[in-house]
Structure formats: C-alpha cells, structure tokens
C-alpha cells in the first residue's frame, strides 16, 4: 500500500471510531467537515496520485471441493470465478483513472460514491472477506474462538450457541428478505449482529447504526446456496458453521479491536 493510502485509511478508520464515540459531543456535520478537510489537506500535500491499481480476485486458499458437503464445488467455482470476478471487473471499471484506494478504505464512503462503487466495491470486499474466513470441515472443526473472542461473545450474546442461534434467526428468509449478508461486528466494546441488503456492509457509513467492523459474515444471496439447497436457506445457514475457521475469526477480532479498522483482504 502506498504511503498516501495508508495515511488516508488510518485517518478514515480512526475518524470512523472517533465519529461514533463523539457523536453525542459534537454535531455529525462538524466532525464530517473536519474529516474531509484533513483528508483534502493530506491529499493536496502529497505527491501526484498514481493511477488506480486494478483490484483482483484473490485465489481461494483451498480447492473448490474443499468445503463439501456443506458448500458444493460447483457453487464455489461459480461464486468465485463468475460472481466475485464480475464485482472485481465492475469496480475496476468504476474506479478507472482515479487515485488508488485500498478496498477496505473504499468502503467508508461507498454510499456517497454511488451505486457502481457501493454494489461492486462492496461485492469485492464482502466476497474476499468471505473466502478467507472458511476452511475445509476437517480443519475448521479443530478451530475455536480465542479466549478474548470467547469472552466478547459471552458478554454480548451469552454463549457461542446463543450467538449462532441469533445469527441463524437473522439470516432466515423472513428476516433477511431478498439478497444480503449477515455479520458479527465489533462496535465499540461490544459484538453486534447486523444484516445488510445487497452488497452493503457495516464498514459503509450510513448502512448500519454506525460504522462497524465485521469479524464474521455470511452471504445469503441465493447464488451462495441455490445449486445445493434451492430454497432451503435455513439448512445452508445451519450447515455453514461446519466450515467456519474460528482461528481466522479470532484473528479478525484481534485486528479490528486493536486497529479500529476493517479486516484487510487479499485482492
């Protein structure tokens, strides 16, 4: 990452958490103006911005069939090679000729940036995030939440089982209607359960009650499960726990807690 984007993303991430904590103390628009002015000052002070480096589809860390029988190989292949690839192609088109921005940093102002960035920048981040939090079932079953994550789960949900039950309820077809994602996020010193529509995510300002940092997320668009499960989304969701890599989720938790920033992704 270039020095410029590092500064910008650190500023934006830091300001994002400052934003939610100081909301009561300052009016939102004053703080927003301050962030924009600081950002503009840094941008103009920096060297001529480089042309945007294209985003890319990261390779999976496992073969397409690795998540069987819970997620089938044809779905993994199409989901990765077609759906995710389309989001990447489209976000590259939408950001062509513009200054390079890390995909995490791109999320914050995605709503303002317009539907092309919101849908495709969101789609790229969400899917890159998704691939890396999963592992083949044999590996996944050896993983578990770290002590710190376990403590946070117990504090916010009572227990891991209660968190899973709440997550499944939020992901049900009658609760998250149509296309979207369900997330567990760090927000302040709590974990929160959030559903978002289409390719939105809680890193985007204006989507959730405040900007939050996902540590776990599930795609419930029909394309994520249709070939194997058809309309049986609840079965897909309850099976999904078998491929969740809790070591990675724990790493995500440690990262966002320390950095107050979104989990970085490959691509």
């Amino acid at each position, binding site marked *: 990452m270039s020095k410029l984007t590092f500064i910008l993303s650190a500023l934006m991430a830091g300001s994002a958490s400052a934003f939610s904590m100081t909301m009561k103390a300052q009016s939102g628009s004053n703080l927003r103006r301050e962030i924009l002015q600081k950002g503009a000052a840094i941008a103009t002070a920096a060297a001529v911005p480089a042309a945007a480096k294209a985003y890319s589809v990261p390779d999976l860390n496992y073969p397409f069939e690795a998540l069987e029988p819970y997620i089938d190989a044809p779905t993994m292949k*199409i989901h990765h090679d*077609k*759906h995710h690839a*389309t989001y990447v192609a489209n976000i590259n088109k939408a950001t062509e000729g513009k200054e390079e921005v890390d995909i995490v940093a791109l999320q914050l102002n995605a709503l303002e940036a317009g*539907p092309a960035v919101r*849908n495709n920048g969101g789609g790229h981040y969400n899917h890159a995030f998704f691939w890396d939090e999963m592992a083949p079932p044999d590996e996944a079953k050896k993983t578990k939440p770290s002590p710190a994550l376990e403590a946070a789960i117990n504090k916010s949900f009572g227990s891991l089982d209660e968190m899973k039950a709440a997550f499944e309820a939020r992901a049900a*077809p*009658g609760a998250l*209607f*149509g*296309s*979207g994602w369900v997330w567990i996020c760090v927000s302040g010193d709590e974990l929160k359960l959030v559903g978002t*529509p*289409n*390719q939105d995510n809680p890193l985007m300002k204006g989507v959730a009650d405040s900007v939050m940092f996902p540590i776990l997320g599930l795609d419930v*668009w*029909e*394309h994520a499960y*249709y*070939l194997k499960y*058809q*309309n049986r989304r609840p079965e897909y969701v309850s099976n999904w726990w078998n491929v969740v890599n809790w070591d990675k989720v724990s790493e995500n938790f440690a990262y966002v807690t320390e950095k107050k920033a979104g989990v970085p992704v490959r691509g």
Partner: protein
Amino acid sequence: MTTAATKSIIAPALRAASVHVRSSVLPASISKSCAAHLSSVPPGGKATLPDLPYDYAALSPVISAETMELHHTKHHNAYVTNLNIALEKLDSAVSAGDVSSIIGLQGALKFNGGGHLNHALFWENLCAKGSVAFPTSGPLKDCIAARFGDVDNMKKEMSALCVGVQGSGWGWLGYDAKTGRIEIRTCPNQDPLEATTGLVPLLGIDVWEHAYYVDYRNVRPNYVNAIWDVINWTKVEERLVAAK
C-alpha cells in the same frame, strides 16, 4: 367484530388482486376458483397456490421444468403459506385492536403478499414458445408504439432495467391510469407494482436468482433475453384492456 373488521380491511385488497386472475386464459372453472381463492376472506384469510396454466415442461428450453417446479411448489408455495400465517396473525391483532402488532406485521404482509401476487401474475404472462405472437394490431401494439416506438425497443429498454436490478426484484410493464400510458419499472424484493407505484401490472419478469439460476447460473442477461420468447402477449393485452 372480527369478521367485520377483517372484511373491511383485507377483503377489498384481496378482491382487487383477484381482478388480475379473473380475466384469464385459464378454463373458466379454474380461473373462477383462483379468483375466489384470492378474494375469499374467511376469518384468518386463506390464500391458495394457483395451478399453472400449463405443464412444468411447457416453457422449455427457455425455462426448464426443474425451475418451474421448484419455483412454483417451493418458492411461490412458501409465500402462500407465510401469507396465510401473517393474515391469521393480522386477524388476531385487528380483533384485539392491537395497532402495534398490526404495524409489526406489515413486513411479512408485503413480503409474502407481494410474493404471492407477483408469482400469480407471472405464471399467467408466460406461455409455450411460439404459442402466442405479439399482436400486429390492437391496443397493446398501439400503447407500446406510442411509448417506445416499437416492441423491440420496449424489450431492449425493459431488458436493460431487468438486468440492472441490484439483488432481488422484478421488472414490470405497467399501465398508468392517470396518463393512459404504459411504463416500465423495477421493484425490489417482492414489493408489488400497484401498491408501490400505482401502475397496473401488465407483464412481470422475475429477476430473483431463483428464477434463473438452475438454467442460466449467474448470466441474468441470457435469461432476460430468452424470456421474451415465452411471453403470453394475449394475457398482457387482456390486462391492459381491463385496466383502461
């Protein structure tokens, strides 16, 4: 009090919905029973899954029998089931005067009621390939010519809108009673066209992934381009005439 309250709120809405099923190419006995099902409102309300006007394989190869069966018996059926559950709860809430619960049910009513209405309309505006040609004269041709120039241009514009829907939703050709013109629109999720926009639905294209994933995978444009071959233009025109 239950029956009176139910009849004054639910019945008119469902009777309005039944207009679309009533004017139908279905045999009279089936169309009447469909209409009756949509408008019948015993306490608790009972929507029912209408039979398709053709076999599951009738729209092949544009839409496979597998898709039609899943779409009808699983997806549409689930909307019917869940609509009935929501209507029962609504009935209880209305008779208890529980306004908070009535409001709380709006999401379920819109999702499932919209899902039921939209799919009932959808099945009827489809037919076997080659069985119905676009009319060479008449009110539908005239309306389309006035608004779009010709049907090919209408298809092009409507296809672009359908392909552009983000996530789940529907593309619609609709009639604006205020202006007397036809328009194209999209609605997200199962939001029903008329309740959302005031337009009377003439032709709907389902672009939820479940409508095309088995046959076209991620390539929604191929599905949308192909579906024009199985549109029942007679039905579309009937709806236009009824709406005018």
